[in-house]
């Protein structure tokens, strides 16, 4: 598993008090882990700080609400980690 996933899983476990072993790359943050919107903002804050990025949560939420993107695209952890890696790479470029 990627270093990004390990960091994100650790953040979720600590922030939401979810046992680390329950968090897998295939976990859906909302459907599987039961993370609500307030807790997700907490996670986003920790991710922003850990990776030096700004997760575009408002844009993602709008895309999901308007049916332009499936929620899985952003909220399944392996996909979330890919977005994080993309944002980190874009920042370095």
């Amino acid at each position: 598993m990627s270093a990004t996933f390990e960091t994100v899983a650790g953040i979720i476990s600590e922030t939401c008090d979810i046992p680390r072993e329950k968090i897998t790359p295939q976990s859906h943050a909302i459907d599987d882990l039961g993370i609500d919107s307030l807790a997700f903002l907490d996670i986003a804050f920790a991710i922003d700080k850990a990776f030096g990025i700004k997760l575009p949560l408002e844009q993602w939420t709008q895309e999901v609400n308007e049916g332009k993107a499936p929620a899985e695209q952003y909220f399944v952890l392996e996909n979330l980690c890919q977005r994080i890696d993309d944002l980190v790479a874009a920042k370095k470029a």
Partner: protein
Amino acid sequence: MRLEYFDMIDTVTTFDPSQKRIATRSTVPSAGASPVFEGHFPGHPLVPGVLLTETMAQASGYLLLALNGLTQMPFLMMVDKARFRTFVEPDAVLDVSAELIHEGSGYAATKAKVTIDGKPICDADLRFRLMPFPADMRELMETRIAAIGLEPVRN
């Protein structure tokens, strides 16, 4: 301050958009001027910690409103590392300041503190959800920030 109306900030002394900081000042009402002191505590009036937290949140909220030009309304969503170091009595003059620590997507984090004559009174890390203004709240906020002398950044 008008404690029972949750008007916690009297005036803005400085707002620095480049540093993302705000400094404000508030005077605690006299003991007989607020019913809050009738209960907290009878014969021993002290400003409740929850109202000091609200005071720090409002200073932070005005900072966020000024920085975003009143495009989104901040709602307090988290209080972290709150410390209440000294009692606050009636008639105290509070210097309440806040700085933006992180601006996320749909949320923001601040550090806020209260001092009296430079002495630390309380401090906290606060986080706010940034949302569209409900109903006519934007007009209310426009009126309020004008009343405390805050000039927001207009884009």
